[in-house]
């Protein structure tokens, strides 16, 4: 990028790896938290057999209701908490087996951006000091060089030099989120995990941060795992989207395929509920019943059967596997081909005729 660059970007790339192999591979990941005070064996099944791959330079979205296990996946991948079982490789290296120097280098290649920028920064440190910490931890540059790197990164994320000496309380949420993203990128990671990066922001800040992330993704060729419950954010950012329910992936597809042909009943409810100005208040009514069950004791058979409007006897008896529903499209429902026969409900996919005036007028 520029002449002065003490961080060697390629340091962690293993030239021997197959360039066509997926960059991130997660296989049968399980994370159970034991419940204190309960007999052994009783646990919260936060993540229960999750597998996915992310190609180099791809953005994979992970969406689902609160408590379904999205952040747990992020924390396990970042080695902030150990998995119960399962394998994850990044650039063909086993993430969970790394130790010592290899682990330290891995921490440079993978970075996490949290939801709450206020919590991610120490209120007693200036922005500049906070951003220099990871550089110092990895022994990069001298004080003077670190300062230059930070100032350059502030500029890259759209903040001027005055932010270097400011404290978090002197900045807005959106500005702090830029700082947090900039800090994560200082180590020139290959793989970025963003856990709800815009949920704490309002509409204008949200678009600024999303533009920034997309711009940086192109400039730094980042591979991204994007976690959000906002399907509109997903639709803009992601190449592929995985929908989670109670610790499992229930549907994965290319972005457009997912929005145009959602197959799983839960995905359909999610889409209808998030596009209120296009579909109105009534479209999502009746697409979901009951309350989210506890991950302590997930329902038998299809985990979604207590909330599914298409559920029948077989659903509570048979454990569901991910089935192929098209090219790169999988769905965890044995009846996915027959849902529309049973009910009048149709998937809503934002076709123009069904849109409310606002969306129509503004997209014209």
């Amino acid at each position, binding site marked *: 990028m520029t002449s002065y660059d003490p961080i060697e970007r390629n340091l962690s790339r293993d030239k021997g790896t197959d360039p066509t192999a997926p960059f991130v591979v997660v296989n049968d990941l399980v994370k159970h938290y034991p419940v204190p005070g309960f007999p052994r064996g009783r646990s919260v099944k936060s993540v229960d057999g999750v597998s996915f791959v992310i190609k180099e330079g791809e953005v994979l979205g992970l969406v689902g*209701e*609160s408590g379904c296990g999205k952040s747990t996946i992020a924390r396990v991948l970042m080695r902030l908490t150990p998995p119960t079982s399962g394998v994850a490789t990044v650039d063909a290296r086993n993430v969970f087996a790394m130790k010592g120097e290899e682990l330290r280098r891995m921490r440079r290649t993978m970075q996490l951006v949290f939801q709450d920028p206020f919590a991610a920064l120490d209120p007693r440190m200036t922005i500049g000091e906070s951003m220099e910490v990871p550089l110092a931890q990895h022994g990069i540059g001298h004080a003077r060089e670190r300062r230059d790197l930070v100032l350059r990164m502030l500029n890259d994320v759209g903040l001027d030099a005055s932010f270097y000496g400011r404290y978090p309380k002197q900045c*807005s*949420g*959106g*500005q702090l989120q830029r700082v947090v993203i900039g800090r994560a990128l200082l180590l020139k990671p290959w793989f970025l995990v963003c856990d709800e990066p815009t949920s704490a*922001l*309002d*509409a*204008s*800040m*949200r*678009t*600024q941060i*999303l*533009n920034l992330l*997309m711009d940086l993704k192109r400039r730094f060729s980042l591979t991204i795992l994007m976690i959000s*419950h*906002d*399907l*509109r*954010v997903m*639709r*803009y950012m992601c190449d592929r989207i995985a929908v989670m329910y109670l610790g499992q992936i229930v549907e994965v597809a290319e972005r457009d395929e997912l929005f145009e042909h959602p197959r799983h009943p839960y995905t359909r*409810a*999610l889409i*209808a*509920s*998030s*596009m*209120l*100005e*296009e579909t*109105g*208040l*009534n479209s*999502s*009514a009746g697409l*979901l019943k*009951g*309350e*989210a069950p506890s991950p302590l004791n997930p329902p038998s058979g299809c985990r979604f059967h207590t909330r599914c409007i298409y559920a029948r006897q077989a659903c509570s008896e048979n454990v569901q596997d991910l089935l192929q529903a098209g090219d790169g499209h999988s769905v965890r429902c044995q009846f996915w081909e027959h849902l529309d026969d049973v009910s009048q409900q149709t998937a809503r996919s934002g076709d123009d005729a069904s849109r*409310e*005036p*606002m*969306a129509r*007028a*503004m*997209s014209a």
Partner: protein
Amino acid sequence: MIMEKSNSAAKTNPRPGEPLLEINNLQVSLPDAPHVKPIIDGINLRINAGEVVALVGESGSGKSMTALSLMQLLPTGLKATSGKIIFDGEDILAMSQRQLNHLRGGRIAMLFQQPQAMLDPTSRVGTQVAEPMRIHRNVDRTAAKARVLELLGEVGIPDPSARADCFSYELSGGMAQRVMIAAALSANPELLIADEPTTALDVTVQAQILKLLDDERRKRKLAVLLITHDLSIVSALADRVAVMYSGRIVEEGPTQRILNSPQHPYTKALIQCSLLKADKDGNLFSIPGGAAQARDLDEGCRFLPRCVTAASANLQERCTHLEPALDSYNDCCKARCWAVKPDGAHSGAHEARRP
């Protein structure tokens, strides 16, 4: 008009379509920090009986402080320094503590973003839902008990008699917000103030709660002041919308009129942002700069540092020195902008906003 109302002997509540609440030139400031500009600076807003009015605008624009003024619940340090808030003919800002207590939770109810934080963890759900009707409507214990079960059922809580005996921490976020709605409706209020009532909830739960609010307000002819920064919620729920920017209302009118043909540059930009639609280069529309810039201005339009219209409409000079007033531009909408001409006839230059 207001005089007439308070003089009328019979205490008949306003009927649908008649003004229920009128905010006149409200100003909220920090009296101990005179150099800080007022946080709310001359707001006028009317809510008719049975009407849902949405207050939108970016973080920090003053939506919550407007809502809290209505109940005289501003945080310490902040004070309504001028203006009037007329509720059914009487000025809330001039009321005694007794009158206020009578109003809060009675004729005016409130709903907040974090339901769990608002419910009392030491008291049972049923007791909390019963409280407003017992205090404000003199309903006796047995009648209240029956009415609570009815209400809990109405807001979609399965098995109301079991849930009435629960504590709030035993409830999910969605259930807790339903309980809050039941408690808010308990004394049969005329005005509900809802500050980001679904922001903390999952999208699927959010859609259910919004539907419930919409059903209840229609059934009860309840007026609602709905605060949100999500325009899809506004579009789905509100009759009228007022757009706030830096402590002022910059545009106001019927929801579909405003969302379909916004006139103020900030409203246009806000709508563009909310849609998250990318242009051909893959960029999302975003408003340059931040709201903090408005606080540094001493004169002129507060939106100027971020406005693309001022330059293209050749208004830079006027916008820099003179602040526009909130003027009607057609029979039902108002905007605070020099570039907006009556009847929506724009000064021609607005087409030049970002591609």
